[in-house]
């Protein structure tokens, strides 16, 4: 977004007032073909996209909500959700003093710089403008290399051919209940295209995709890495994210063409609800990648937020010699429930996959690893190694592991290791005897447990994620 656009936005606020405008530009609750036509029209979408949404919607109507995950929640009324409201800036505050003290304390603990704190909390200060100028320089550098990095809506306008070609190529419109819902009503998200042979010179972060509007609860991301290219993408941030929408159903599709590599890192810290689990976000996400010959996909996730997490970033290893990796830390404290894992579908010859899952359960949290390793008939010489470790803190939480293994080719090699351990009183005492507070001791032990995953994260992200793990466990011991 340019300086002009920002000015326009700010002026608009003063001119018309803020609240009435929203009221005027919001669809009534509920979902119907009419609403979908409205969404598509409001966004000025091409015909193919409208048809795609409608197809997804019609398919969704025939589907039932999945119930196989080890999570419990009250039924969701899909007709009570508002599926379209106009893009709007976040509510802005006059200064950092107006920010929720709880949020500010979290920022300080995470060591987030002041300017960024202001941006995250929606404070109208110069810092916001600073980040716009940073983003502009950033965009210029990417454009030089021919890399497209923009909001999904912009991509539909500026690169409709790319969108039409790849949208739904990994997660089809009717893939599963939540993906179908997303396909029908998605609001916005990110789009990345890296041209053939280009190595993206910097980490692409949603932080820099200046997006004053809320991307909302149905986010859609599509990343295409053309032959021999490389890109590293960072999603989310460690700062606590609150949202009035309880249901979030995002879809992420990654396409790695022959010889390409995509590294996708997530830190998810949506509001988990209070200690009793009230008001937390339901996060039902479909993430999947397709890897062609010699391509490599690496998913890294640190999941500390949300009341319910339902998420299985997967790799379809279609091309020969393609590689899939999944590194995950999932933390469930208080009443949080996480059912997360991955699917590695080996289709090509000599495809390799690695799964490292670290589940941490505390309070009355329930943490489930659910993973599928499938080796198709043609996957000669395919290999997988899975390591699933669980760490328990306290005696009211739970850890569960469901590894599914299907091997249809006799040359396939699958290894699965699993451990469950508990933070022991003697470990805590040892740390405290050396001068660490109990909180710091827990944080250190947990970070040691998660180390193999954290070291896959880009440096700065890893440092914040480390602090985040400690913070998310505050008060869970003793």
């Amino acid at each position: 977004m340019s300086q002009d656009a920002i000015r326009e936005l700010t002026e608009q606020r003063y001119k018309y007032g803020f609240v009435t405008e929203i009221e005027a530009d919001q669809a009534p609750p509920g979902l119907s073909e009419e609403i979908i036509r409205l969404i598509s029209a409001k966004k000025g979408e091409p015909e193919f996209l409208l048809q795609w949404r409608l197809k997804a919607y019609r398919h969704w109507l025939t589907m039932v909500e999945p119930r196989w995950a080890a999570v419990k929640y009250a039924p969701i009324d899909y007709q009570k959700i508002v599926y379209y409201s106009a893009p709007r800036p976040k509510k802005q505050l006059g200064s950092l003093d107006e920010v929720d003290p709880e949020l500010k304390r979290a920022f300080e603990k995470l060591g987030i710089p002041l300017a960024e704190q202001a941006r995250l909390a929606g404070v109208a200060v110069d810092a916001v403008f600073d980040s716009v100028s940073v983003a502009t320089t950033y965009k210029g550098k990417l454009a030089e290399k021919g890399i497209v990095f923009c909001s999904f809506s912009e991509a539909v306008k500026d690169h409709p051919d790319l969108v039409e070609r790849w949208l739904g190529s990994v997660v089809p419109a009717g893939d599963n209940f939540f993906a179908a819902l997303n396909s029908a009503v998605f609001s916005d998200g990110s789009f990345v295209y890296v041209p053939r042979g280009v190595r993206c010179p910097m980490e692409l972060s949603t932080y820099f995709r200046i997006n004053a509007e809320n991307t909302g609860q149905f986010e859609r991301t599509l990343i295409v890495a053309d032959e021999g290219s490389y890109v590293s993408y960072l999603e989310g941030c460690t700062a606590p994210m609150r949202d009035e929408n309880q249901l979030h159903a995002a879809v992420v599709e990654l396409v790695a063409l022959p010889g390409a590599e995509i590294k996708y890192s997530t830190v998810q810290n949506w509001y988990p609800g209070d200690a009793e689990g009230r008001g937390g976000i339901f996060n039902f996400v479909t993430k999947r990648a397709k890897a062609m010959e010699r391509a490599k996909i690496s998913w890294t996730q640190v999941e500390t937020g949300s009341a319910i997490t339902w998420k299985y970033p997967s790799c379809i290893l279609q091309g020969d010699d393609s590689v899939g990796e999944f590194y995950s830390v999932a933390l469930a404290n208080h009443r949080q429930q996480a059912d997360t894992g991955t699917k590695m579908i080996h289709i090509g010859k000599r495809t390799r996959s690695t799964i490292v899952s670290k589940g941490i359960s505390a309070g009355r949290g329930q943490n489930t690893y659910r993973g599928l390793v499938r080796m198709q008939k043609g996957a000669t010489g395919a290999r997988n190694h899975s390591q699933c470790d669980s760490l328990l803190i306290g005696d009211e939480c739970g850890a569960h592991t469901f590894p599914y293994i299907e091997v249809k080719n006799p040359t396939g090699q699958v290894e699965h290791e699993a451990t469950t351990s508990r933070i022991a009183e003697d470990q805590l005492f040892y740390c405290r005897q050396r001068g660490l507070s109990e909180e710091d001791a827990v944080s250190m032990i947990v970070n040691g447990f998660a180390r193999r995953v954290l070291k896959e994260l880009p440096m700065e992200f890893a440092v914040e994620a480390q602090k985040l793990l400690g913070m998310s466990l505050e008060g869970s011991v003793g």
Partner: protein
Amino acid sequence: MLRIQGLKAKIGDREILHGLDLAVNAGEVHAIMGPNGSGKSTLASVLAGREVVEVTAGTVTFDGQDLLALPAEKRAAAGLFLGFQYPVEIPGVANLYFLRTALNAVRRARGQEELDAMDFLALAKEKLKLVKWDQSFVQRAVNEGFSGGEKKKNEILQMAVLEPRLAILDEIDSGLDIDALKVVAGGVNALRAKDRATILVTHYQRLLDHVKPDVVHVMAAGRIVKSGGPELAHELERSGYEQLAPPRGEARAP
């Protein structure tokens, strides 16, 4: 420096310390010897603030302050160090990082400036010489995959870095071969100073051949039953504990 009076403590329902008195002055090295089950390790745990041990009577002061009122980490900050009989493994946490975090926690509590990574590395290199280790040991996770002897040396390394005013070493000599024993003893001797004190909890005389104690105590059935000079340790080595220690039933009688 340390003054223990009438200390009684229990684990669960079982009283293990039955009214123990001990005074340790700055500059002294004390050895506490005694048979298994006499309460030596429980005493070390009480002093370090382990919560599974419950103090039921008595007082402990450390530099004049009430030690028992402090949580374990505050005792560490006040300069009390416990060398563990069974050092704990912390997987995935690099030894160097653990040491720096511990030192900085203690420095912070004392109002001193924290050391940055570079300064700390310089300090650690210096201290590593004491235990004759190269840097590879501190890159490894805390005690993970360490042999018994390596774990004990790691305790000495931690002590050397933290420079406590009072070090309590709980059977630091058990399971050591003679070379490791010399290294451990060298580490203890290096820390001897006018303003510091050490308590060695041990079964055997052999550590005391390398670290000469100022006072030797014999512990039996939850009490200190005899104290003396270094010669007492030799006497014990010759005649065993039986003569010095009254039968346990008697000691427990009110």
